[in-house]
């Protein structure tokens, strides 16, 4: 598609429950990124993929967070045993591969996760 799609729009979970978020990048884009936006507009980079391979996972809290981008399936971000501090809006973005220094990322509408 021509837009990054994210589902669900909203997700409510009790503490300790699992949460799974989905992202369909723009067709033809090689890179997928997950960001977490908490209060005061602060973004935190979580993980990126080059096609189905993890490219950079330096931002991932590895104990409870995992992500996948499998061929012919939406990418997913899963949080096992959610905590209150996981409440945030999770954005997915995609970009084209480029050897050049300038590129833009296209963001989805986000999934708002509320942990009660």
């Amino acid at each position: 598609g021509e837009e990054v799609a994210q589902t669900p729009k909203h997700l409510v979970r009790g503490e300790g429950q699992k949460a799974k978020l989905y992202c369909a990048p723009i067709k033809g884009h090689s890179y997928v990124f997950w960001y977490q936006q908490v209060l005061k507009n602060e973004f935190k980079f979580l993980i990126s993929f080059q096609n189905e391979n993890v490219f950079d996972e330096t931002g991932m809290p590895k104990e409870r967070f995992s992500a996948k981008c499998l061929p012919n399936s939406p990418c997913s971000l899963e949080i096992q045993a959610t905590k209150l501090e996981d409440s945030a809006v999770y954005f997915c973005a995609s970009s084209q591969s480029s050897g050049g220094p300038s590129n833009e990322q296209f963001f989805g509408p986000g999934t708002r996760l509320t942990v009660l």
Partner: protein
Amino acid sequence: LAKTTQPISMDSYEGQEVNITCSHNNIATNDYITWYQQFPSQGPRFIIQGYKTKVTNEVASLFIPADRKSSTLSLPRVSLSDTAVYYCLVGDMAGANNLFFGTGTRLTVIP
């Protein structure tokens, strides 16, 4: 990574030109300057990008002085629909690299 500093908030009346300045004293030689816009309940959206001097597109202009230690996003004749948070980003914007957002500037356009 070059740190950016921009005003937390700005107000403007409709129809006025708005200039948002971003400081990035530690910008590296291969860094680009990119601005994103975020409306409430939406993901950020690319506005404009530049390396030096002036860049203009249908939405905005970006002014970058010779030393590149700052940049100014200029929005001509803002309307109520320009109310949003504007982020200044500095870095190597190759497609593989993740973006580092600061806290942005919340622009409120007043009727």
